[in-house]
């Protein structure tokens, strides 16, 4: 296989640089004389202090030029609908059925407002309530909140519940430590940290997951709980997880399961049987709702019955045939965000689960594990790439690889390989969360949505790039060649001084612009 993809490369200006003064996409008609005579000037409703003295500098572009602009930009992206992107491991990229997009664009969903009276939104409240019942069945836990807008927010929610639980028992001051593992998702450390805990991290042992002795060394009467991912970022499942949760319980702590990506165990293993008291799912990963380009999303947090009183307000309660929002929750940790959850994400996930049913849900996991392992057999053909932990310890739904040998031989590392995949029409492949314990990491995750042909073509591209690196390292070090843009200066990502998160920061940093 050789590079065979050619992407559009437009030299497209910014929208604000297009058009000419006075050019318009749409000219609203002036109100008729009778209306104008009776309607007040809308500006009078705006206090003078809030009025602009000069009109905003909006783009001035006609419709055909505008349409062309956005179509060109869309041709310069690689999205899930145009390219195989299972390289983005740990993100569980899968097909989001288009029929569900039709559902969320129905006026009954699209026109909902979160401030509507309960009587007028019984349908969506029922969807939220039924989705909660499904997640309870899938996890074995007793109650869920759909309020957190991301997986990290769900981890923060669960850490806050752990804090509230210990406070309610008079141990809030004493139990100020949360244990996590280095290969758990980074939010498993940063979420509890943000909730006020000291975080104690466990390094992986020789098998790729933490050793029981390390956990024992971490436990004390300061232990509030453990927040852990399993299988971890490596895709390796910790077979001693029940022993972990038992030891944490014996020390007086709670156990929180990060199931952001549950694709390897969906319908096969549940949080309750592994001894967990809380868990969360990313509905925009495992449950097929699209990631929506970093949001809106949904991290559904679940708890055992005895922790339900701490859940954020409101929760949806069923009383007879009626669904109500219960705001009267005196022990609640409060709100994680406004309202009750992103309704469109809930509708998509609900429809996805309904369409599959219990057997279909299990088949998702089985197919994902089969796909990931078939991909692994193909990737063993990639020169210079190896599995960092014993292969007897088979990863499940994603695999962490190391390209250290290729890097030492040729100077071509995982980031270079990842960039060059674009020349084959594939999206970049994810390396690893920080820190990089495995040198030159790569973590693909071939979920259930991908065909054998998809997997073979992707593996062929990986093999080809590695062989090209061996033949002529510079050829790969300077790629990709066939894309909308080639290489960007990634150093800016590591340099907070060059981050410009808002226009206010941009103005403050005016001096560094253009560097």
């Amino acid at each position, binding site marked *: 296989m050789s590079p065979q993809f050619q992407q559009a490369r437009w030299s497209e200006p910014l929208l604000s640089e297009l058009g000419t003064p006075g050019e318009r996409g749409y000219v609203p008609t002036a109100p008729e004389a009778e209306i104008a005579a009776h309607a007040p000037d809308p500006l009078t409703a705006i206090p003078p202090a809030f009025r602009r003295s000069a009109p905003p500098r909006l783009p001035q572009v006609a419709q055909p030029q505008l349409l062309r602009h956005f179509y060109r930009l869309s041709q310069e992206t690689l999205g899930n609908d145009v390219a195989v992107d299972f390289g983005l491991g740990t993100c569980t990229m899968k097909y989001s059925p288009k029929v569900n997009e039709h559902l969320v664009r129905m006026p009954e969903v699209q026109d909902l407002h979160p401030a509507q009276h309960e009587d007028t939104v019984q349908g969506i409240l029922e969807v939220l309530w039924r989705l909660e019942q499904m997640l309870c069945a899938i996890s074995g836990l007793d109650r869920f909140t759909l309020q957190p807008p991301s997986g990290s927010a769900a981890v923060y929610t669960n850490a806050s519940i752990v804090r509230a639980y210990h406070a309610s028992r008079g141990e809030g001051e004493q139990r100020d430590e949360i244990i996590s593992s*280095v290969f758990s998702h980074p939010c498993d*450390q940063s979420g509890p*940290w943000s909730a006020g*805990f*000291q*975080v*104690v*991290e*466990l*390094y*992986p*042992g*020789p098998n790729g997951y933490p050793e029981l*002795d*390390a*956990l024992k*060394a*971490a436990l004390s009467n300061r232990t509030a709980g453990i927040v852990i991912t399993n299988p971890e970022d490596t895709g390796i499942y910790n077979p001693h997880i029940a022993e972990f949760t038992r030891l944490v319980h014996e020390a007086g702590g709670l156990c929180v399961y990060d199931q952001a990506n549950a694709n390897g165990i969906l319908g096969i293993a549940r949080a309750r049987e592994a001894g967990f008291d809380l868990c969360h799912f990313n509905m925009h990963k495992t449950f097929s709702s699209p990631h929506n380009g970093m949001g809106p999303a949904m991290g559904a947090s679940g708890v055992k019955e005895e922790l339900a009183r701490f859940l954020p307000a409101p929760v949806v309660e069923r009383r007879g045939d009626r669904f109500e929002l219960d705001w009267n929750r005196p022990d609640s940790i409060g709100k994680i965000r406004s309202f009750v959850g992103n309704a469109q994400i809930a509708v998509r996930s609900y429809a996805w689960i309904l369409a599959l049913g219990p057997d279909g849900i299990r088949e998702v996991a089985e197919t994902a594990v089969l796909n990931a392992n078939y991909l692994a057999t193909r990737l063993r053909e990639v020169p210079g790439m190896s599995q960092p932990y014993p292969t007897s310890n088979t990863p499940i739904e994603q695999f962490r690889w190391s390209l250290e040998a290729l*890097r030492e031989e040729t*100077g071509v*590392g995982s980031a270079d390989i990842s960039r060059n995949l674009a020349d084959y029409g594939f999206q970049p492949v994810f390396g690893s969360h*920080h*820190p*990089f*314990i*495995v*040198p030159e990491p790569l973590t693909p995750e071939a979920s259930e949505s991908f065909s054998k042909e998809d997997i073979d073509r992707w593996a062929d591209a990986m093999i080809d790039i590695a062989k090209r690196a061996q033949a002529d390292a510079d050829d790969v070090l300077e790629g990709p060649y066939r894309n909308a843009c080639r290489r960007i200066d*990634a*150093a800016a990502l*590591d*340099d907070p*001084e060059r981050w410009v998160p808002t226009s206010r920061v941009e103005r403050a940093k005016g001096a*560094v612009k253009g*560097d």
Partner: protein
Amino acid sequence: MIGLVVNPVAGLGGAVGLKGTDGMVDEALARGAVPRAGERAVLAVRALPADVPLAAAAGAMGADAVRAAGREPALMVDGGDGATTADDTRRAALDLAEAGCELILFAGGDGTARDVCAAIGDRVPALGVPAGVKIQSAAFAESPRRAGELAGAWLTGRRRERAAEVVDLDEEAVGAGRVGPRLYGTLRVPLGPGLVASAKSPSHDEDPAAVNGIAARMVERIGDGTAILGPGTTVAAIGRDLDLETTLVGVDLVRGGALVLRDASEQELLEALDGDGATVVVTPIGGQGFVLGRGNQQISPAVLRAAGIGRLTVVATPAKLAVLGGRPLIVDTGDDATDAELRGWHRLVTGYDEETIYRVE
């Protein structure tokens, strides 16, 4: 202007099975080693922007490589007499700095970095072109080409730098039959993609946010008590936050918010310790994970016992731990009983409100 100094005998030992080249040049040549440092320097020079004026030490110590890359040195300093020694490297680096070079590129290994560090310290930024047998110091680029690219990007960019630890074999310990690293100082290196540490970990080992978090936590812990502070940039940040003039490479003792001993010997530490003991703060030096017994022998078994053996506190940034690739930290104090007591799981301070359970062997 960029200055180039080449240690032409660097890397000779590696090809013929020696652990380094320092003091072994004749032996290496006798075993058939071929000098390669010059070639490596040529690759770096080729990656430099063509319009940047170059200065070099004469002959094999720099100018030959500049010419082999198709350039002509704008300025030359003395390049020794051919039998290059550490003194030649030091003098050439100093001459280039004094001649107005904005950045010194040096081709060699850890020994060369150490000589450059001794000559220019942090007066002028420097960057290593990897050409030696031992590369443990953080002052090197990943490859010669990367060194040239990084130097060029620094010169034409915003000139951000960081302190990089210069680490070499601990000669005292080697004399005692124990091979391991020692911290000799820091160089100011250009900050950007292509530094050695960033090859192993995307956030470099002196990650300022992590170092500051560790220092703030340790200042709280030490309070008005007694603490022994070992070598290293991470530990040095604790002294900085205590507003004390502690050393980078030596061992210091602080008590009640004051610096009691600076660059102390074992005997001085023992005399200063009282019945209350001390918190002993150390950090791994180099990429092998040594926390005791290399470069900090002043913190001897007797000192550890007087301080309280359970009061050893290892601090390390997460990125520095990641570089170990899961290998344990190592104690080698020279006393088996002390080492045995220190082995096992330690709670490392890895940030503010952040600890890591890590094995020490």
